[in-house]
């Protein structure tokens, strides 16, 4: 282990030293612990498949130690990797425990080597990809595009008969139309509001809001419902504006209002 450390931090070429310093000063310059491991593994100058994971783990742990000594904050990912490598290292150094469950240290080491090799392969592939002829740099598309004009023309037709039948349909529908929004039986809140604004000046005492219903709206249940709802909503609006007070003694009891004194 001491040898490795020396190898990494003491007996380096200037370039390597600069690189190592760059590692330490700027952990974020690395794209994660795998990237750092890959860089470290390159110093072994061997086939990634034959890499000594033990040695690699030692280099990594040394790096983390060194970085800590420099009081550089290490990202959690790096520390997790360090812990994992320390674990792996202990497993590799100790004789295998026949009782132990789970994958062997060799399997774990092989997987790490695979991950590194795969990352390296992707790096190389990315470089090969970027070295290909690129559109806009090496090859070019037509400069003066003559885009196809999409002319989607939809013509609608209707005959005079269609028109007349449609009109006849509408005009004769009143007798049997299933549903139509019939305004004759709707009393709007605006109407109620207008009405109450005119009347509220006289309401010094508590008065049941039912008495505010417009004339002719108290009989037919549909009309009464609409007028009551509108009047109630209008009362709330007026209360909100601070013009009136509302009270109700209990649930479903009559609602009374009066002008705000």
């Amino acid at each position, binding site marked *: 282990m001491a040898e490795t450390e020396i190898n990494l931090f003491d007996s380096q070429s200037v370039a390597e030293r600069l690189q190592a310093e760059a590692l330490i000063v700027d952990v974020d310059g690395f794209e994660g612990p795998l990237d750092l491991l890959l860089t470290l593994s390159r110093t072994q100058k061997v086939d990634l498949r034959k890499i000594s994971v033990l040695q690699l783990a030692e280099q990594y742990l040394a790096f983390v130690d060194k970085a800590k000594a420099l009081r550089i904050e290490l990202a959690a990912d790096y520390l997790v990797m360090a812990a994992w490598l320390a674990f792996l290292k202990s497993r590799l150094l100790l004789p295998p425990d026949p009782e132990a469950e789970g994958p062997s240290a060799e399997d774990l080491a092989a997987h790490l080597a695979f991950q590194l090799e795969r990352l390296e392969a992707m790096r190389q592939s990315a470089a090969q990809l970027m070295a290909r002829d690129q559109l806009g740099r090496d090859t*070019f*598309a*037509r*400069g*003066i595009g*003559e*885009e*196809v*004009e*999409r*002319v*989607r*023309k*939809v*013509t*609608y*037709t*209707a*005959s*005079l*008969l*269609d*028109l*007349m*039948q*449609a*009109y*006849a*349909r*509408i*005009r*004769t*529908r*009143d*007798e049997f*139309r299933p*549903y*139509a*929004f*019939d*305004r*004759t039986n709707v009393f709007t809140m605006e109407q109620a509001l207008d009405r109450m604004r005119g009347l509220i000046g006289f309401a010094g005492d508590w008065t049941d809001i039912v008495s505010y219903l417009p004339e002719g709206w108290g009989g037919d249940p549909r009309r009464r419902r609409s007028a009551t709802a509108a009047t109630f909503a209008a009362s709330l609006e007026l209360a909100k504006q601070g013009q009136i007070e509302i009270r109700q003694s209990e649930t479903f009891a009559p609602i009374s209002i009066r002008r705000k004194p």
Partner: protein
Amino acid sequence: MTDTPETESPEAEDHPRRKREKTLFEAPPIAEQERMVEAILFASAEPVTLREMEERMPHGSDPAEALAYLRKRYEGRGVRVVKVGDAWAIRTAPDLAFLMQKETVETRKLSRAAIETLAIIAYHQPATRAEIEEIRGVAVSRGTIDQLLEMEWIRFGRRRMTPGRPVTFVVTQTFLDHFSLESARDLPGLKELRAAGLLDSRAMPGSEGPGDEEDEADPDGQSEMFED
């Protein structure tokens, strides 16, 4: 292709045109120059002058000659090399212009909502949207009105001089032409529709003929129709 120089020779600037046999660097073969002109014309966003071609091509090139070959090559092809002002460009052969336009014509029957809206406007014009909704008993979607406007079967009329000054719709000349009508007044009234067997239910009070009068006369909520 093999002897294409990768960059222009350094003397390219002060080289006198058409004297390439005297230059130090051999110009590329004319076939190669033709390829170059082809690529330049293809990729340029604007027509290219001979001068611009020469500036971009290797030292000693003769774009005019290369262009002449290229033009010949494209004769009768799907695209042609054409002169635009004093510059050159590749353009689609005029007889193939139809390929650059894909027209699909579809004839559809007008939707029920549209035809009803149209009918109401035709019979009641000028009609506001509120009136149309009143008569149809359902809301009129913006799309329906837009469609009829786009077809130029209806247009905006004068604003109604009532609170809110709602816009009104009236039918257009295009509408009248399509339905072979002289005027909207020629539309058959309900009585005639009934006589023609298009209406088989009983007469509605006041539904004698088309036009605004009829609406006013109709007691069934019509007064509210014009509340706006």
